[in-house]
């Protein structure tokens, strides 16, 4: 009886084999064999498991066999192979797998063919399941006792970890290091020198916590720093593939506003998974022109992107076949995609239709289900609710792990998209996740929680080799290389060469509706003649003197010129612009005086010629509450003499030929600038000067790309860590960067004057948040020369900016 059965089974098998051989499809180890081994043998014979001494981790271990001396298989002879004998055995003591159903005949046939064809094995491949998965829901951890008065919960866990691993605690960082690090980490900017000085001198023992609060309250700076992180994660950009054919939409405006408002993370995710119109661009992916692989249709992109970005789950492998490296299946990917899809989805295995259909389901039905019969809109709502349920620990763990990675240089779980890798400390991951949930999903609160720990504030220990593998031991924070955006912002800040207009469509300043509306702009376009006629490159000085009857409580100036101008007030340079459609302005509350005020504008026509004109308006309030307004009109005067760098004429060279300015007859020539002019003045008057336009708001340039800003066709979750040679070449000679140093150094010379030691001190303090040492001073003074020039300043600043101390955030 028993013999008969085997024979029958074998006959069926032979028939199947015959068909397969007739097709002569070679065995594909990765796609044909690996999934079978994973599913049927993996639990007991891969990774750390070696039941009966038998491991299938590598070809040689499988060949070697287990405790018995029988080899696992005989290459070329399936029928002589132990593996085949055991999976086909009808003896329950012998049959593999020892638990669960027998292997399907198709799988047995594949394994036989594989062995018969010499058991090909992908070189270098080894089975090694992570074997790890956290429980779905966050657990409450028990905090170890505080050591040496280090009571912060993070420190309590880390101190216990360090003790267990016999790691010496790194020493605490000094105030300057801490301030530079925390400012760059939280808002992406260099701290201003005067603020560093005040912080260092502050004797309040709680000053670090106070500083963190203050920095996190810089909402715009915060939003525009973290926008880099989210643009990468949400695949958002202002140019790129897909836009040309309308196959892709931005979420820029929504994203910027959400970060500005510090939208709670659960709401943020809800808006992205079950979007409003403005946030749709993320789940709608990129509609590629032409035919695409089944694994790249928009619903599959949806499944891949939401799981990678929010859950740290990689479904990319499982978009073509059951993942070989993880537990996710093709069915799960399609089911998740089906939640989004408007039409039924058919599973495609490696781009070939399988005939089976997907059912809208999500990955963790333990905490709830999506109604497969509901409309896609409702399904997405349900999915968003499930994903953001506090019971879904994947969401909170994934984001806090990413934040820790950004702040500390490496995540608990590494890499950050493989949340089924074991964290180096599970308790810390749970602690932070719980913090996030308990603090109403406030990401700033998590950041504050981390950066107020002593662990964060420790010195970065030097690293002598790259730490990468599973045996990672946390020794303290790792240095982080400045992102492309941080580096670019820092250079723009130091050189004052940021662009005037962002490419991104964002509302950077929120108008406070409670303030009275500004009265209409009264300024008129003026020049030396009413026709705005001007020679190419013509340069004139315009002047106006006015008296204020009281001290000023609040005032601003806005100006613009076709083509360029610099405005001076009472012997001080205030602002300059070179694009007429982009008015520039500043607050001048402290520069305006009770009594006589002098405004001088050096205005120049472009070298290409064309009409020239200038427009300026001061607007403000005096301490008595009255408003005042001074603007360009025919009461202004002009001359061809040009004042010095402070906008003054030397006493004995006062021009004697001031002439009356003319109001341009046709004011509409520059109508394109009038709204910007109005908004600019309103913005400054109400909110202060417009903050620097940051790199994150600009379309990528080749320099930014070279510095690691990714092409955002795909979700990107980490940036390159090392400066490469090609980048270094660009840092040495890229024209736009070289130009920023050249232009910047002329302005620096204007603003700080030619005193070498003062310049040097400013450069070090602004760049490195510290003063130069005496050795540095000596070599830098030699470099700058007795009388620093724009060139020597540019070179000195370039050298400082190239220092690892500058580019690595420690």
């Amino acid at each position, binding site marked *: 009886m028993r013999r008969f059965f085997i024979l029958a089974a074998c006959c069926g098998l032979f028939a199947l084999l015959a068909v397969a051989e007739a097709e002569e499809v070679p065995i594909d180890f*990765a796609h044909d064999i690996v999934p079978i081994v994973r599913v049927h043998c993996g639990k007991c014979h891969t990774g750390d498991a070696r039941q009966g001494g038998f491991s299938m*981790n*590598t070809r040689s271990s499988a060949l070697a066999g287990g405790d018995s001396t029988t080899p696992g298989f005989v290459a070329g002879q399936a029928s002589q192979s132990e593996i085949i004998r055991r999976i086909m055995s009808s003896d329950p003591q012998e049959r593999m797998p020892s638990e669960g159903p027998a292997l399907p005949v198709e799988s047995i046939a594949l394994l036989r063919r594989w062995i018969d064809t010499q058991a090909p094995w*992908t*070189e*270098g*491949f*080894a089975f*090694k399941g992570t074997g790890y998965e956290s429980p779905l829901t966050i657990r409450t951890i028990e905090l170890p006792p505080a050591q040496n008065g280090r009571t912060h919960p993070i420190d309590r866990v880390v101190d216990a970890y360090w003790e267990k691993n016999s790691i010496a605690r790194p020493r605490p960082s000094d105030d300057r290091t801490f301030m530079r690090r925390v400012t760059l980490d939280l808002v992406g900017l260099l701290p201003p020198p005067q603020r560093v000085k005040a912080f260092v001198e502050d004797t309040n023992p709680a000053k670090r916590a106070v500083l963190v609060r203050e920095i996190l309250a810089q909402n715009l700076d915060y939003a525009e720093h973290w926008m880099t992180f989210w643009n990468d994660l949400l695949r958002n950009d202002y*140019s790129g*593939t897909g836009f040309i054919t309308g196959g892709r939409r931005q979420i820029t405006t929504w994203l910027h506003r959400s970060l500005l408002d510090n939208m709670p993370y659960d709401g943020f995710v809800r808006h992205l998974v079950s979007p409003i119109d403005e946030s749709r661009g993320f789940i709608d992916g*990129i509609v*590629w*022109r*032409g*035919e695409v*692989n089944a*694994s*790249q249709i928009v619903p599959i992109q949806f499944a891949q992107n939401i799981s990678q970005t929010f859950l740290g789950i*990689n479904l*990319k*492998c499982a978009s073509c076949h059951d993942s070989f490296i*993880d537990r996710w299946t093709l069915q799960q990917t399609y089911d998740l995609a089906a939640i989004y899809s408007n039409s039924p989805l058919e599973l495609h295995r490696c781009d070939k239709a399988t005939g089976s259909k997907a059912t809208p389901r999500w990955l963790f039905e333990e905490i709830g289900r999506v109604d497969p019969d509901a409309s896609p809109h409702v399904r997405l709502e349900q999915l968003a609710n499930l994903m953001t349920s506090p019971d879904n620990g994947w969401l909170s763990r994934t984001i806090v792990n990413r934040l820790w990675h950004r702040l500390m240089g490496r995540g608990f779980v590494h*890499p950050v998209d493989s949340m089924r890798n074991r964290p180096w400390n599970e308790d810390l991951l749970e602690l932070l996740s719980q913090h996030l949930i308990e603090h109403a999903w406030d990401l700033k609160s998590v950041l504050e929680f981390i950066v107020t720990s002593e662990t964060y504030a420790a*010195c970065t220990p*030097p690293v*002598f080799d*790259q730490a*990468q593998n599973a045996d990672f031991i946390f020794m303290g924070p790792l240095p982080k*290389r400045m992102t492309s955006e941080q580096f670019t912002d820092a250079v723009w800040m130091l050189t004052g060469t940021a662009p005037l207009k962002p490419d991104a469509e964002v509302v950077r300043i929120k108008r406070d509706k409670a303030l009275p509306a500004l009265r209409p702009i009264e300024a008129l376009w003026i020049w030396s003649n009413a026709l705005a006629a001007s020679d190419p490159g013509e340069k004139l000085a315009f002047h106006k003197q006015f008296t204020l009857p009281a001290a000023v409580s609040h005032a601003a100036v806005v100006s613009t010129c076709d083509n360029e101008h610099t405005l001076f007030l009472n012997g001080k340079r205030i602002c300059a612009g070179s694009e007429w459609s982009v008015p520039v302005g500043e607050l001048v509350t402290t520069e305006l005086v009770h009594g006589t005020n002098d405004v001088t504008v050096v205005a120049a026509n472009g070298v290409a010629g064309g009409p020239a004109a200038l427009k300026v308006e001061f607007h403000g309030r005096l301490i008595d509450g009255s408003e005042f307004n001074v603007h360009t009109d025919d009461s202004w005067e002009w001359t061809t003499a040009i004042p010095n760098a402070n906008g003054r004429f030397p006493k004995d060279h006062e021009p004697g030929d001031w002439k009356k300015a003319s109001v341009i007859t046709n004011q509409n020539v520059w109508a394109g600038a009038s709204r910007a002019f109005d908004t600019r003045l309103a913005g400054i008057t109400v909110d202060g000067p417009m903050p620097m336009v940051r790199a994150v708001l600009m379309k990528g340039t*080749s320099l930014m790309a070279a510095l*690691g800003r990714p*092409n955002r066709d795909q979700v990107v979750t980490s940036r*390159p860590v*090392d*400066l*490469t*040679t*090609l*980048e*270094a*070449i660009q*840092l*040495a000679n*890229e024209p736009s960067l*070289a130009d920023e140093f050249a232009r910047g150094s002329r302005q620096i010379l204007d603003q700080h004057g030619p005193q070498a030691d003062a310049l040097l001190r400013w450069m070090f303090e602004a760049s490195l948040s510290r003063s130069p*040492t005496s050795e*540095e001073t000596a*070599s*830098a003074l030699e*470099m700058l020369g007795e009388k620093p020039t724009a*060139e020597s300043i540019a*070179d000195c600043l*370039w050298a*400082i900016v*190239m*220092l*690892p*101390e500058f580019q*690595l955030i420690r």
Partner: protein
Amino acid sequence: MPLLDVRSITSRREFVQRLAAATTATLLLPEPFSEAGTQESLVVHPVAKADSIIVLWMAGGMAAPDTFDPKKYKPFEVGLAVPDVISTFPSIPTAVDAVRICQGLEEIASVLDRATLIRSHVQPDLGSILHSRHQYHWHTGYVPPQTVACPHIGAWMARVLGPRNPVMPAFINIGQRLEGIGENEEIKAFTTAGFFGSEFGPMNLPFPEEAARAVQPPKGMDPGRFSSRYSFFKKLVRNSPARDYISDYHQESMLRSLDNAHRLLGAKEREAFDITREPNEVLKQYDTGRFGRGCLLARRLVENGARYVEVTTEYIPFVHWDTHDRGHETLTKLKKEIDRPIATLIRDLEIRGLLDRTLVVIASEFSRDMITEGQPGSKAGDQANSPKDFLLLPNHYGQHRHFTGGSTVVMFGGGVKKGFVYGKTADERPCMAVEHPVSVSDLHATLFSAMGMSPKTVFDIEGRPFYATDDGKGKPIDAIFS
């Protein structure tokens, strides 16, 4: 010339140390694949037949019947029946008996005895045929879109083989602008090292005559000032109060890159980028235009140790090889631009004893046929179903339609057979490859193998194996090597 033989290096540590120009080891760069952890990839690389490769990229779809695979020819006349003609140029003899190519390529014909012609290169039918998708496929081995950013084959060679000369960038891309042309985002998507990170990405030199500037001090800075700026920088590094970090890994790697950059910018090899240093008569021999100057630049770079150089006729929609109108006329001009420089490049490499170890490849994203255009859902065979048409206007005389069923790849040097033809296409429409079809994967496997790199080379990206050829399945065409 201190060329670095990567193959003799045994340990990863040594590799990192010796490969001065490459800061390969990083925290996040993908590692050679092995689920077991950190050891080296166990892939066995073949013995290299070539040290450098120059890809001459005929962007836009070079029509095989009008270049290297002549078919029946008739000159234009009003009322010419389309079925009666396939080539719009007559064939000419070459240095190889019995091998003919098309008129206008006389110079190349004269060096064809150094070449192997693969006349059966085929591309998949990507539905609505788009240049940038096919170019992406040809340059990365993967059909876009992909879930990860795929590296260009030049980046694969830069990553796996490294630079030949530590001061020279390993991967140099000549002649293609990435801004200001149509489809530039699509071109950028494959002109990249993808997940390898930008260290392995291309040095882009869109204008050969301006290449020298890419390795010069910035405009307005004389060499003296440039070098004193760097000496000052080094002084600051030496005097840094942060002594703890002197041998820190991150710091070391950053300083090494800056040093490499300044070594190139100060090295003699920098002159390799300056084609004006060539004698006037040599310059004239190459200078048929931007592409010709690119060939000269490529030769200078290879002489100085570049690993992978690509020179393109530049892809701009509807320009150069992307002929949708006046094809015959356009190709007459285009051949003048490529013929002499390519032949000169081959002869120059030969004279310098470099041809044996330099693989020169002429290729394009697909071929063309005269009359029909691929429709979404159509198969390659359908693309050349000629309607029963008559030509009335000379500007309709040319290869105006895309064809993926059979194109020609020409290879010189680098161990390929001399005066050899591999594969063939049908003599009548559709001119499909009818013998030894060669896929993009197999062609790449051939190029990689010639360069000493296994087509199964694999890296771990996001925990998944990613191969140099699709799924590691590319098979080199051994038959074309002597």
